[in-house]
């Protein structure tokens, strides 16, 4: 039965897609009027499609037309570099190759032969030029739309280090990366995904550093994507993940060109999607969530301390509510007597069981966080005041929840902000462990942790174990995991990702005093 439905659905979809693109794959014809009619038909005479007919050449006997999308082009450039040179030309013949070669002072000009290529060309912000009597057309680079300035990304702020971030324009993003990696081996591979949106994506990698297997696997996974609209990086991520139903994302992301460059230099592949400032990187290790650009900009000791703070914060945010519920409901003997008495006193008269209290306050926090994120900043502050003062204080005063519980939930919530990449997983792990802790005590928390560890140990990101270098154990990589070793000590590439070409810099480059410097 299901098979029949699947077949039917596939046939319907095929018919549907054929009807939409009917005629678009046909080659252009020599008759200009017919070409214009066909193009207007295919674009449905959309109001943002602008076309202009004109004559050029000696005695103005050659007819031509340009097509562009209003708002996506630099009109001054069209006037100056497309219309003006062609219209002022005294060309005798109207061969498209001659026009392209002699009258277009534009960097990028491409010849196309079908309606499909022509339409896609000018839909991307270029200008399409049709000449009467020619069965080919020109796509002239005239992109120029309103775009956001290159600002510091709000989600990945650093104290010390570069402050530029990716924006929504693919070309600007690739340029930002190219500015950092001036190497002929840096390659961008263009792909188009999305049957309706025709979104441009670009793979960026350094040939010779990246693994060919990884590249071919990634290309294969991207080519498998058959989606109508590709609107942001999240779409790509969900289609190329190794474990799509896992709590943990096995595709990394960044909004910072420096982070992206560092990952590419390490041998990863970056996936740029036009229209989003987020760049995905693969393969992605769990440990990457705990690394920040600031770690490498500050002294190694501080970097190490901050990194450990993140590990501890992640442990707090995932396990603290569960441990608290388990200990208070089952193992009161583990708590020192004075602390236990304080907790017991605070719990006197509260109406809900500890487990219910935890879940309730956790839900309230998530509601406030979601409200705070979506609202405009000025109203967001009101929400935090309402949250902190009204809900926090009055619930305690009314005796609905206990103060220690409020502290536990707040601490767990604040700790989650230290590892923003793992906020999603932390929320569910915390919930999972809290429920287990509430029903089975510390035994439940431990069983829950074992289940999570087993799951993590089984995850892979493009063939690389997600928990590497912890599982499998690769002590050589610990220099950038357990500690943040000085950069002159990080001589080897990550063995978690690479098996060959281990050395990435010359060994023994520890800076020292010049010889005889003290004399």
């Amino acid at each position, binding site marked *: 039965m299901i098979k029949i439905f699947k077949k039917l659905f596939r046939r319907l979809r095929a018919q549907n897609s054929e009807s939409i693109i009917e005629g678009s794959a046909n080659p252009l014809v020599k008759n200009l009027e017919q070409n214009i009619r066909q193009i207007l038909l295919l674009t449905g005479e959309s109001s943002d499609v602008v076309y202009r007919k004109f004559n050029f050449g000696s005695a103005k006997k050659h007819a031509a037309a340009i097509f562009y999308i209003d708002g996506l082009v630099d009109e001054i450039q069209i006037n100056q570099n497309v219309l003006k040179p062609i219209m002022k030309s005294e060309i005798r013949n109207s061969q498209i190759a001659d026009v392209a070669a002699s009258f277009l002072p534009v960097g990028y000009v491409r010849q196309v032969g079908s309606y499909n290529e022509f339409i896609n060309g000018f839909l991307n912000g270029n200008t399409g030029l049709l000449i009467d009597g020619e069965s080919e057309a020109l796509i002239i680079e005239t992109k120029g739309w309103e775009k956001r300035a290159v600002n510091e990304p709000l989600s990945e702020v650093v104290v010390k280090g570069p402050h530029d971030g990716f924006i929504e324009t693919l070309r600007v993003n690739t340029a930002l990366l190219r500015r950092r990696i001036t190497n002929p081996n840096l390659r961008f591979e263009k792909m188009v995904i999305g049957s309706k949106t025709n979104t441009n994506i670009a793979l960026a990698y350094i040939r010779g550093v990246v*693994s060919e*297997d*990884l590249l071919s*696997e990634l290309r294969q996974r991207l080519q498998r994507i058959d989606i109508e609209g590709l609107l942001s990086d999240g779409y790509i991520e969900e289609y190329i993940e190794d474990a799509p139903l896992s709590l943990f994302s096995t595709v990394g992301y960044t909004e910072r060109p420096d982070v992206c460059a560092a990952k590419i230099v390490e041998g990863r592949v970056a996936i740029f999607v036009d229209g989003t400032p987020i760049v995905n990187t693969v393969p992605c290790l769990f440990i990457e969530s705990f690394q920040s650009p600031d770690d490498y900009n500050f002294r190694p000791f501080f970097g190490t301390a901050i990194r450990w703070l993140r590990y501890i914060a992640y442990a707090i945010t995932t396990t603290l509510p569960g441990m608290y519920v388990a200990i*208070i*409901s*089952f193992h*009161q*003997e583990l708590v020192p*007597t004075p602390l*236990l*008495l*304080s*907790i*017991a*006193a*605070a*719990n*006197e*008269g*509260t109406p809900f*069981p*500890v487990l219910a209290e935890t879940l309730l306050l956790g839900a309230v926090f998530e509601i406030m966080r979601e409200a705070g994120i979506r609202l405009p900043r000025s109203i967001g502050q009101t929400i935090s005041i309402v949250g902190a003062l009204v809900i926090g204080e009055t619930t305690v005063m009314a005796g609905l929840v206990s103060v220690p519980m409020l502290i536990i939930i707040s601490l767990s919530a604040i700790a989650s902000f230290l590892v923003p990449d793992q906020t999603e997983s932390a929320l569910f792990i915390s919930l999972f462990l809290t429920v287990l802790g*509430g*029903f*089975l*005590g*510390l*035994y*439940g928390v431990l*069983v829950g942790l074992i*289940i999570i560890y087993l799951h993590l140990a089984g995850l892979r990101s*493009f*063939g690389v174990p997600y928990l590497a270098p912890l599982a499998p154990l690769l002590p050589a990589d610990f220099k950038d995991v357990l500690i943040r070793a000085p950069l002159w000590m990080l001589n080897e590439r990550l063995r978690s990702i690479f098996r060959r070409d281990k050395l990435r810099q010359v060994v023994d480059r520890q800076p020292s005093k010049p010889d005889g410097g003290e004399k």
Partner: protein
Amino acid sequence: MMKKKSKSYPKSKCFFFCILLLLTLSGCWDWKEIKNISFVSGIGVDLDENNEKIQLSLEVMKAQQINSSGDSGQSSGNSPEEPRFMLNSVGNTVYEAIIAAGNKSSRDLKFTHNLVVILGPKIIRKGLEHYLDFFIYDTNPRPRQWIVVGGNSLEEIFKVKPKIEGVVSMAIAEFMNSDKISYAFEPISLQQFLQILMKEKQSIAIPMIEVEQSSEGDEIVLEKVAILHDRKYADELSLLEFRGAMWLLQRMNSGSVEMKKSNNEWISLRLDNSNSKITPKFEGGKAKIQANVEAEFTLIGSIDEDDHSKHNQMEKLQYQVEQLINEEITAVFKRMQSHNADIYEFTDLFFKRNYRMLQGKISYDEMFPQMILELKVNAKIRQTGRNNKILNL
């Protein structure tokens, strides 16, 4: 590279199996809301008026009152509520008495945070051998709770309202935890207590709690230790007397020694360090203990006419201190020998080292009363504080 799994691992089956194990093998169904539990802080065990049944007194903490006792701003005119309540019960065994006490409480009683077990005066005099079972078999009580002996009846002890802690058992636990220099005693935990008393013919010195009556209200004091031999009360010593035993037990790390030189002359010394070396010897069919006690003091006060800056005066003083320590040690040792209460565990020392040699020659019980103590005390007064005479200022 990018290998695909050759065969699908039955993850779902494994997961459900884990969940099944989780539910069937878990022993943690004893879920208790903290607000429905009352925590017992002190257990008093004694015998009833007829010396037959166990008389149990439980001191139960009121968490809210204990925590609010520090809030001075909440005075509403009424006298503050007591931070504890008492549950008294009688039973043939300790466990039965606990069950009976539990029936008098609306909340579940938890013994996991018990601080002190007070053994009443009647029960230690009758003997503890039949009453230790509860503490041995029940795994709930903490092994680190303190054991004390009650000098007064349990009723009198628990009637006291301690001025600082508010709860008697907390006040007693503070005595055990504190590091006061004037006290010479060793706190005994339940674990140590059971380790010693599970064997027959063993002796132990347990701190004794008494009630001191004064015009400002009764107060708990700790001034004595009780000597238990073969699970029965044998003797009691003041802490000053017990210091004589502490030298040999190698527990004298700090403290003070007040020495009377003559009628109106006193010397105060603070102990900085002490060490004792015990060597058991079996000579001529007799057990002999060679004890070398070394102690270092600071002179912190003197009411006398002597000039302590002079070397010979200091030597004289050191000699006097050595004599004092010698007398203290010998007095307690002889007193313990009269009860055959080997609180020093010297007999064990002999039998552990020379079991084969001693087997058949002398019985374990007879050894301690006949034991000879060869004592050598070496006292040094190392520092004299800011004594101007000594510094020649």
